[in-house]
């Protein structure tokens, strides 16, 4: 288990570094996809299948398409005008350092000092209320059950909202006959 964790972590860190160092914006975006997948793998290791699935669907899928759209719309394939000034670089390093320190502090405050393998079957069911399916059953199942019972009406309403989005996009984008 720790071996898989370190491999995924390595992939995530290396690909994230590639994202910020590639001069070609499309290449950066592609490396970002890899980062998203590696992080999704880390989520699965933590027993958070639902977040992993959403990570892949929303970030690696939807958000990525949006990024690529924007890059292609404004023709950003090659950033020539971007000045790699020392000031900008040092500012970025300082910000990244601050981020690292605050994440470390957060872990320390929460009492996390080492990576431990999860107990079999994921996290204990602390989040599940009485009578609800335990989280030990895998949280994808829990989310699915809640979505189709307690939150059935919002779930169905979302489908209507999506329908309106599709109709609206066609209305605004179609060519005049």
């Amino acid at each position, binding site marked *: 288990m720790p071996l898989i964790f370190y491999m995924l972590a390595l992939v995530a860190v290396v690909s994230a570094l590639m994202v910020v160092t590639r001069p070609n914006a499309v290449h950066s975006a592609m490396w970002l996809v890899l980062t998203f997948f590696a992080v999704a793998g880390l989520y699965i290791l933590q027993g958070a299948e639902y977040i992993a699935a959403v990570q892949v669907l929303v970030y690696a899928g939807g958000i990525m398409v949006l990024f690529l759209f924007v890059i292609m719309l404004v023709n950003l394939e090659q950033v020539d005008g971007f000045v790699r000034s020392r000031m900008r670089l040092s500012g970025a390093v300082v910000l990244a350092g601050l981020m690292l320190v605050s994440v470390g502090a957060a872990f320390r405050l929460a009492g996390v000092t080492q990576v431990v393998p999860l107990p079999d079957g994921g996290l204990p069911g602390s989040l599940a209320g009485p009578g609800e399916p335990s989280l030990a059953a895998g949280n994808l199942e829990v989310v699915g059950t809640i979505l189709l019972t307690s*939150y059935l009406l*919002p779930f169905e309403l979302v489908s209507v909202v999506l329908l*309106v989005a599709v109709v609206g996009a066609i209305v*605004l984008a179609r060519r005049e006959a």
Partner: protein
Amino acid sequence: MPGPVFQPADLLTLGPGLALIIGAILVLIPDLWARRRGAVSAPLALLFAVATLALVVGIWVRSDPGAAPTAFGGSFVLDRFALFFDVVFLISAILAMGISLHLLPQDDAQTGEYYALILFATAGMMFMTSGLDLLVIWLGLELMTLSSYVLCGYLRTSRRSSEAALKYFLLGAFSTGILLYGMSLIYGATGSTYLPAIRGALDAGTAGGGLFSLGVVLLIAGFGFKVAAVPFHQWAPDVYEGAPTGITAFISTAGKAAALAAMLRIFAVGLWGSQVAAVWVPLVVVLAAASMILGNVTALLQTNVKRMLAYSSIGHVGYILMGLVAVGSQLTGSGARAMAGRGDDLFRFGVASILIYALVYTFTNVGAFAVVAALRGRALAGENVEDFAGLAHRRPLLALAMLVFLLSLAGIPATAGFIGKWYLFGAVIRADMAWLAVIGVVMSVVSAYYYLRVVVAMYMRPAPEGEEQAPVSSVLTATVAMAMGFILLIGVFPQPFLDLASQGAAHLRLPSWLG
């Protein structure tokens, strides 16, 4: 949210909203083979809206005054409060369709999707009003606003229309984000999105603190954007001016009424407690006063009638928010003192005054926009004050209708607008906040000035020579006549309508589901 969950009978409770969604989907179909786009679908949409209105009225008649059906584990309730607003939305939608049936063929833009989107938006409003769960309310809001963005930009060849849609979309998405953030903070602090459970957490004293208050503030800011209250109003004039006139009429009446209904539901059911009221009541007071003052004063400077009506509608939101202040002040200092020993009276009076104003304002504002639409000619947008010059000689009946709408907007007696304002001002005076009512009255006088400018142009200035007379279709005539008829009816015989509003207000917090 409690409970299990879905019974087939729940679909019946969902009735009106479901009927509109099904209707909207059916309306999308005939354009596939109709010879002329919209020829079948547009009247079909109007038919669905009218049938749903009949359904809503029927449900009201058969409903129990002391109880209301809920569905989906209590997250949806079909009480008389919701039914009253449903009627307002449907009236607004029907009249807006009337305006559009006249205008869209002129732009050669008649399609079924336009009317389907109006139906979708109306369904969204119904879910906003009936939702007892923040998620349902928010999704209803999204359904409404997404449809409205598209409808605003519907005239794609018009720059103004596209600009309106873009502005509405960007600011609307931004404000939705704020609203959702506020809702998530409230969820985080109380552990539920279900309004009665939120209130339970407040009563038990387990909720509170800075993040919760921040959530309430963000909620008000988000709704402030949606109803275009000062200082969240900047998008409104451009959007109202640029959007197709039928849509302007629709979103400035039904859209605002829906947001106000959701606010009432959230604040009077979920966030009802003296501590949380100390956060939101003062904010609503500021919004109300600022909207009344800035909306009406800025309207003085406008020469475009659609823009003038946009600023005036900001002022009218200020009046309506006074009703919310009256409702909430029962929990804070002044109203609590004034209400000692009178129980829920002020609450019901305040809510009823908002209901009646929403109804009155819908007829009045949509009517005024319908007259603007009638003036539209081939060479003429019909939107400037000068375009109204001499209207009384050219088309005396149309001028008379506009006169009635403007007098009602200004709140002159014998029109419905007077009744609406009378009860709103009465509510804040009962809540012992007479100074707010004074601002309202003074600003009504200011508003009378710019409304009368149009009247002066219609009645006292000569018509320009050789002006082209655009024919007014019978459907637009019927729209104007219906709006005018109801304004005079409510203005002269207000009592039946007040009774209905009072019954609706009594249902806002029914013990049967409040627990």
